[in-house]
C-alpha cells in the first residue's frame, strides 16, 4: 500500500509541469469598447479602453517619474503608451472582427494614450477599419489566444455604439467560466505552449454582437 502510494506520488511529481513562469493568466484587463459609425451608417472602427489590474499597473509605470508624485499625466505616460500599441501590433490588438461572416481588417491604432486613475492604468486607443464597412451582423471578439492576458467586460458599461443607425442594437456574450479541465490546461500553458496559430483562447472570448437589420 505504502509502495503504491509513493509510486503514484512519484508519478504525479514527474508528470507535473516543469517549466518556468507562472500559471496563466498573468495580466487582467477590464475593458470597454465603443463601436464607431460614420454618418452614412457604415462602421469605421472601434475605440477601446482597457483597464489593467492594480498590480500590473504599478509594475508598468515603474520608473516613470511624474512631475508630481502619484500624478501621472498623459504626457508622462506617452512613451509607455507608444510602447504598448507597438507591442500589441504583433497580437492583432487582441481584437478580432467579422462582418456578415467576412473577416474585417484594422489599420494601426490612432488616438492612443494612457490614463492613470489610481490605482489603475487605462489604455485608450482607436482601431480604424481598413475600409468602412456596412455590416448587418457584426461579431467582434476580444481575447488573448494564448490567455496570457485575461480580458473581462467592464461591469457598468461594457459596449456602446457611437453614431450607429437607429435600428442597430448591441449585445454581448460573457465568456464561460473555465471548467476545472480547462483550468488545468491553463496552468500548463507555460510548459506545453500553444501553437502560434492556435486559437485556444477563443473559447474564453468576450463576444460583442451588433445587429443592424
Amino acid at each position, binding site marked *: 500500500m505504502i509502495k503504491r502510494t509513493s509510486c503514484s506520488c*512519484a508519478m504525479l511529481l514527474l*508528470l507535473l509541469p516543469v517549466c518556468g513562469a507562472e500559471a496563466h493568466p498573468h495580466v487582467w484587463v477590464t475593458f470597454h469598447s465603443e463601436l464607431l459609425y460614420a454618418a452614412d451608417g457604415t462602421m469605421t472602427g472601434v475605440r477601446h479602453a482597457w483597464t489593467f489590474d492594480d498590480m500590473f499597473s504599478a509594475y508598468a509605470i515603474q520608473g516613470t517619474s511624474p512631475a508630481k508624485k502619484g500624478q501621472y499625466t498623459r504626457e508622462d505616460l506617452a512613451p509607455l503608451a507608444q510602447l504598448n500599441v507597438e507591442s500589441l501590433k504583433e497580437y492583432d490588438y487582441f481584437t478580432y472582427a467579422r462582418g456578415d461572416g467576412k473577416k474585417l481588417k484594422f489599420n494601426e491604432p490612432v488616438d492612443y494614450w494612457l490614463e492613470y486613475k489610481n490605482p489603475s492604468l487605462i489604455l485608450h486607443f482607436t482601431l480604424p477599419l481598413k475600409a468602412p464597412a456596412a455590416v448587418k451582423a457584426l461579431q467582434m471578439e476580444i481575447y488573448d489566444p494564448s490567455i496570457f492576458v485575461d480580458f473581462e467586460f467592464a461591469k457598468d458599461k461594457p459596449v456602446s455604439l457611437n453614431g450607429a443607425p437607429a435600428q442597430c442594437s448591441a449585445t454581448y456574450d460573457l465568456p464561460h467560466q473555465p471548467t476545472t479541465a480547462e483550468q488545468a490546461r491553463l496552468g500548463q500553458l507555460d510548459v506545453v505552449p500553444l501553437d502560434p496559430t492556435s486559437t485556444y483562447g477563443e473559447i474564453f472570448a468576450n463576444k460583442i454582437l451588433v445587429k443592424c437589420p
Partner: protein
Amino acid sequence: MTRSRTLSLIVMAGLIIACAGALTSAWSAPFGAPHPSAVTSSSGLIGWIFAEQAAFYRSLSGYIRASKQDGVAMWELLGISFLYGVFHAVGPGHGKAVISSYLVANEETWRRGVVLSFVSAGIQSVVAVVIVAIAAVLLGATAKAIGLTVHLVEIVSYALVILIGLRLFYVKGRGFLLACRELSWRPTHELVFAAAPAAMRLSAVALQSSVRGPGAMAIRAGECQEDGCEAHVHGFQCDGNHDHHASAWGHAHGPEPTALAGAGGWRRGLAATAAVGLRPCSGAIIVLIFALAQDLFWTGVGATLIMGLGTAATVAAIATAAVGARGLASRVAKTRAGFGMLAMRAIEVGAAALIVAFGLLLLAGYMASEQLWMFTG
C-alpha cells in the same frame, strides 16, 4: 515476490519514459497544436489549485494596501502570501522537477532534499528582492529594464541547469556502463573494445536528440538487458572502456558511495539548487514593485519571503516523495544484485538526462515567452 519487484522496476522505467513522452510532446507543441482534451480527469485537483492560486494572487494587492493602516491586515497578508506560495509551487517552475531529478540521480537523503528545497526557494525570494531593490529602488529603472534583467538572470539560470545536468549525465552514464559491463564481465572477455568511450557517445546522443534523450536512454537500457548483457552479445553500451571496472565495482554488489555522492555532494547539491533558485518568480517581482509604489517596500519584502517559505514547503514535499520512490526502487534493486543495480543506474541516468531536458525546455520556453512583457516592451 520477484514478480512484484520486477513490476516496481518496470513502473520506475515507465515513469521515466512517460515523462520523456510528456517532454517530447511539449517540445513538438509548436509544430502540432496539443489538444486541450489531452488533460486527463485526474487534473481536476490541479485545476482547482490553479484557480485558488490565481485568486490568492489577485487578493494580494488588497491586503498590501490595507496593511498600510491596519496591523491585522499585515498578518492576513503574510498568511495569504504563505498559502499563495504553497499553491503556486504546485504549478510550473520553482525547480521541483530539477531538484527531484537531482535527488534521484544522486541518491540523496530526504533531509538533504528538504534543505535544498528551502535553500532554493530562499534564493529565489532573495533574488527577486535584490533585483527590485537595486533596479527599482536605487536606480529607478523602468519595467522594461527590469524585465530585461529578469530575462538575463533566467538565461543564466537555465544554462547552469543544463550544464549541471550534462555533468551528472556524464558521471551517471559512466556508472551505468560500468554496471552494465560488470554484469556481463566474465563472459565477455572477447568483446571488441570500442575506440571512443561509450559514455561520451551517450552524452553526444543526448545532446543531439535533446528531449528525446530520456526516452532513448530508457529504451536502450531495455535493449541492453535483453540482448546486450544477458545474452552476452555485443550490446550497444556493453562495449566501451574496460579500465575501471575492477577497482570501483567489486562484483556489482553496490556502488562505491564515494564515486556517486562523494565528499563534494553537499557542494554540488547546493550548486544545482542555486542554479534553479536563481530565476526569480515574476509574480514576486510584480508584488514587490506594487508594494514599492505604495511606499510599503518592506511589507512587500516580507510577503515575498513568506511566499518563498510556502513554495519551499511544497517543493520539499515533492522532493521527499521523489526520494521515497527512489529508496523503494533501491531496496528492490538490492535484492537482485545484477539487474537491480543496472536498473538503478538506468534510473539515475534517466534522471540526469531529465535535468538536461528540463534545462533545454526552460530555455526554449524563454524563447517562446517573450510576450511576457508585451505591454512594457
